[in-house]
């Protein structure tokens, strides 16, 4: 009978975390920021069809970085869970906090119990009826949930992007300003990102039921001009 090798739990968790981080670092990063009319999510994404940001519910948006098939699966789960909850109870009962907890449970479970952790980091944003009720959640590959007040950066090079956003960020900026801050933060020194390299989605606090809106490439070009 062959004996399984003993691996210390610390080592096992570290190996998994390294594996997940490596997978996430291969992809491109994204920034979610509050602005004067809601929340803007700005992602570096050259693809015009494979989206990183999407609508979950009336006031809730999802964005993911890392392995596309994995975060896309999480996105669909979120839509299903939210639509079921809204159907069973009321549209007002669907909230970002409980969704973020559900994601954290599942991603955490996968991290410790499955063969391979998910190589993704996701963010869940909810635009409140008033700015004070805005919610931003950052869920990491191991199920850790972080609740942010102003902005979130997720992805490979998050630390350096975060410090760039931090220096420029001010509350209540207009959309054009936050898009420009995010563009500069996501760009490298060699190359400034253009509208074709970016995917921008908004949660607008404008009173309509579905707050999620994609910014078309045309209007993005105007915003960046």
């Amino acid at each position, binding site marked *: 009978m062959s004996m399984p090798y003993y691996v210390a739990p610390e080592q096992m968790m570290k190996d998994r975390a390294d594996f997940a981080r490596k997978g996430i670092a291969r992809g491109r990063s994204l920034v979610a920021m509050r602005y004067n009319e809601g929340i803007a999510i700005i992602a570096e994404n050259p693809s015009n069809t494979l989206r990183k940001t999407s609508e979950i519910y009336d006031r809730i948006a999802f964005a993911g970085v890392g392995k596309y098939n994995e975060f896309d699966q999480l996105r669909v789960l979120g*839509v*299903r869970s939210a639509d079921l909850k809204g159907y069973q109870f009321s549209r007002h009962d669907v909230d970002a906090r409980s969704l973020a907890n*559900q994601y954290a449970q599942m991603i955490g479970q996968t991290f410790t119990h499955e063969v391979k952790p998910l190589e993704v980091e996701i963010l869940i944003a909810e635009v409140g009826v008033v700015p004070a009720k805005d919610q931003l959640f950052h869920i990491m590959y191991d199920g850790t949930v972080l609740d942010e007040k102003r902005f979130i950066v997720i992805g490979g090079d998050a630390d350096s992007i975060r410090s760039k956003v931090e220096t420029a960020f001010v509350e209540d900026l207009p959309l054009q300003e936050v898009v420009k801050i995010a563009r500069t933060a996501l760009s490298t020194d060699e190359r400034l990102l253009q509208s074709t390299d970016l995917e921008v989605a908004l949660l607008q606090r404008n009173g309509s039921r579905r707050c999620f809106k994609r910014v078309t490439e045309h209007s993005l070009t105007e915003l960046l001009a």
Partner: protein
Amino acid sequence: MKFPLFSIEQDPGSNFGELLKRVGLSPFSNYANVSQVDIPHATTCVAIRCADGVVMAGDRRATSGNLISHRSMEKVVQADDFSGVAIAGAAGPAMEMVKLFQLQIEHYEKVEGQPLSLEGKANQLSMFVRNNLPAAMQGLMVVPIFAGYDDQIGQGRLWDYDATGGRYEELDFVATGSGQLHASTVLRVSWRKDMSVADAIELVSRALWEASDADSATGGPDVLRGIYPVVASITKNGFTRVSDFDLAAVFATITTGVQQR
């Protein structure tokens, strides 16, 4: 709450109705024989095509036997930005069907990342009506009209259904419910190709007025309480409900015309 997880074979995809079945929340279950019970019924709805799209209208009355059970029911409902549903039949299952239909359209759009085509929506509604067939046989018939603006061909389209889910696209106009006969006679006589939205609103209002005049289950304009039929236009600019203020003027003209007959 827990995430609804499925194996590959069991995955409902972007179908919200199937998802409800998998999690045991499907509203399409067997009803007991209720044909002997007086349940609220909703009545006349019409939709017509005009130059810029379609105009839909429905009265506000729901009846249980010979009693009026609701005076302000909304039978014409926005399905999404460019389409609407009007329903006649048993009020409970009809409202549930509309709610489910709205959710299905939105659910599909979110899961798939793009909206269903207008024809796809019409087909989806036909499946809902077919699923309701066992209940229809028990007396809970639901017969909707579906209408919308098809941006792929740049014009309005409308469909009516039968209890088995049969889906029929109409080119000019359609009426459903207990006042169907009276309303569709008015439409048949006065409908013209390429009417303006304003003319179409006037025509559907007249059709509903005549239906309410001859059919006790169809409600007319209730000036006393300020309740007017729901009238909406769907054009390339989207779904727009006509305000009660404008409808009051339209019905005032109609009733003045009737007085002078």
